[in-house]
């Protein structure tokens, strides 16, 4: 029985997990870096402990500090969220040794899937289709050139030790290989402490479709339906949906069964996701398994009616799954948009800075998982993804309409975000037609295609009124209040 859970994470996912714990009557323990003392997850948790300076290498990635906080708080389990230590087998092992339940898979399963080349070998042996490519990390540039020639361009270079688009490069031709190999290795080394890369045949105009699985360690392993995550920029997902407009019931069942086979092949327990690359002809290949909760898990929750975080906690407590495969019903359509502090016009460069106001969307079909509030700062130290908007509708057009409304209502003032860019995506005719592929953004909203909002007379009017009021009535300010005076200063 789990009574108190430490969340080894920050941001929206820490908030999400704390909420599930509260729903279950389980105490929550937050950890925070020096930059996060005021963060939402700290305030929502029952307890909170500092774990070090702002850089994540000195705080959220420090297993030692997190285990110490767990010991001090008397927590009996650790939820790693996503990112940070969530796919670190050594951390999972050390939790176990400290008598803490790790809310995630066994260390051996993390290891098996974590090293991407080894995972591909295991999958190939288990009869899970994999993309043609090298099954070993590449030794050097000459071997990369040789293997690429064997498989045929275009190829994709990928970091052996990680995911999330880091250390990943598309190589169209032999001339591009040298630069791409160097950049991918160096980025992999920076991000994962391991510069080894491997290569795969690049499937052109593919879709990214993934299957959620849930295994209880008592022999039950279910698939919960797919998510399509083809809308990506810089190889990172920004719009996800469930189900996929491309997947038929028959394809779903085949994909689900293969995902379960993949999970069983590594002795998987808890929630996990098997990612597939899907060709326009409908062939699908195993890409990797994410041995953790996914950012986009809410869309599965919306269409299945399940709470995946609660399921994770029940599994970690040793409970068997309550549902069977035949109970799975998908209801309606769900979409998720990731709000990033970034500039879509400038290569999606992150835009950290102070937040001065947040207006959250509300109403039927809208869910927001976020850690933003009407003040605070988007720090340079962490991922610029600051909120997720999830929309549900009875079918895909209805879900898209709800998403449109929610994005319109959602305003984050002070920093630049990708909100307008997301609006362009979810109202794009190709998106609405379900014509998705991982090159959707360069194809339809690339440089030259994407435009910032046109000037609008109401914006000019509002700016003029704000300037006028601060000049003329600025003295008669409301009662002194920090945020208000900051506003007055800013509006001077």
């Amino acid at each position, binding site marked *: 029985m789990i009574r108190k859970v430490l969340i080894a994470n920050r941001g929206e996912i820490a908030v999400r997990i704390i909420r599930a714990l509260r729903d279950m009557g389980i105490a929550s323990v937050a950890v925070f870096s020096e930059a996060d003392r005021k963060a939402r997850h700290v305030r929502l948790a029952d307890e909170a402990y500092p774990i070090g300076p702002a850089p994540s290498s000195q705080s959220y990635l420090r297993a030692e500090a997190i285990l110490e906080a767990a010991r001090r708080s008397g927590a009996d389990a650790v939820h790693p969220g996503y990112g940070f230590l969530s796919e670190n087998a050594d951390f999972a092992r050390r939790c176990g040794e400290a008598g803490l339940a790790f809310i995630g898979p066994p260390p051996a399963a993390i290891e098996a899937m974590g090293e991407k080349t080894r995972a591909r070998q295991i999958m190939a042996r288990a009869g899970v289709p994999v993309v043609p490519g090298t099954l070993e990390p590449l030794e050097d540039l000459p071997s990369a050139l040789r293997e690429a020639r064997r498989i045929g361009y275009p190829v994709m270079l990928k970091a052996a030790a990680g995911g999330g688009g880091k250390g990943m490069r598309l190589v169209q031709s032999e001339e591009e290989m040298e630069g791409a190999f160097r950049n991918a290795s160096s980025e992999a080394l920076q991000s994962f402490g391991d510069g080894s890369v491997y290569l795969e045949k690049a499937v052109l105009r593919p879709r990214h479709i993934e299957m959620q699985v849930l295994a209880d360690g008592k022999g039950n392993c279910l698939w919960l339906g797919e998510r399509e995550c083809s809308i990506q920029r810089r190889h990172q997902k920004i719009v996800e949906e469930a189900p996929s407009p491309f997947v038929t019931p028959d394809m779903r069942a085949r994909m689900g069964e293969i995902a379960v086979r993949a999970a069983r092949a590594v002795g998987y327990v808890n929630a996990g996701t098997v990612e597939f690359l899907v060709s326009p002809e409908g062939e699908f290949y195993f890409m990797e398994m994410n041995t953790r909760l996914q950012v986009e898990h809410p869309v599965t929750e919306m269409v299945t009616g399940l709470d995946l975080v609660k399921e994770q906690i029940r599994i970690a407590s040793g409970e068997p799954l309550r549902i069977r495969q035949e109970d799975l019903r998908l209801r309606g359509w769900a979409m998720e948009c990731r709000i990033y502090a970034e500039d879509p016009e400038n290569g999606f460069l992150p835009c950290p800075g102070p937040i001065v106001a947040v207006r959250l969307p509300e109403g039927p079909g809208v869910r927001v998982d976020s850690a933003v509030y009407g003040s605070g700062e988007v720090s340079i130290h962490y991922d610029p993804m600051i909120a997720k908007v999830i929309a549900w509708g009875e079918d895909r057009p209805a879900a898209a309409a709800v998403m449109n409304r929610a994005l319109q209502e959602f305003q984050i003032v002070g920093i630049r975000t990708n909100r307008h860019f997301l609006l362009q995506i979810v109202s794009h005719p190709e998106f609405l037609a379900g014509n998705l592929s991982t090159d959707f953004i360069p194809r339809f909203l690339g440089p030259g295609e994407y435009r910032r909002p046109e000037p609008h007379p*109401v*914006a000019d009017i509002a700016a003029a*009124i704000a300037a006028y009021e601060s000049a003329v009535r600025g003295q008669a300010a409301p009662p002194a209040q920090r945020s208000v005076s900051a506003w007055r200063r800013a509006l001077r």
Partner: protein
Amino acid sequence: MRYVILRDEREIPVEVVPREGGYRVTVDGVPHEVDSEFLLPGLYSLLVDGKSWEVNVYSPEPDVYHVHLYDGARRVELLSPIGLVLRAQSTGAGGRGSSVRAPMPGRVVKVLVEVGQEVRKGQGVIVVEAMKMQNELQALADGVVRELRAREGEGVEGGADLVVLDPLAEGG
């Protein structure tokens, strides 16, 4: 009160005249009757010629306003006529070269050029990492590297000059 909006090299005249319950705002010669209600700092309800708008206005720096409408945010540069004159006096100086600037705070991962090296417009000159993302910054024009102001491994401020370029060839 009179203002000027700077947009696309143009100076657009704006006038704000208070009236009962709001303002008459004239933008580029077009008058609008505006019923304006201040709700919270930065948050307004505007009824403009009968249409309803909820608007967030934020001024991150003097004369610059970020105006959030439902379909997206606009940046409006709005000056008083005096501000316009002051601005004209303060600019105008500055060298003829160009430099590559850090778009945001970060850390230099790699410097790709040397002092004295010729670079072409669009060529990558320095790699800066910020928020776990590596970004190769490119020269905005052809030139010769005059000075490197950042070293590998060093932290840099947003807006800092990293690589200073002299214009290429004649007259430079």
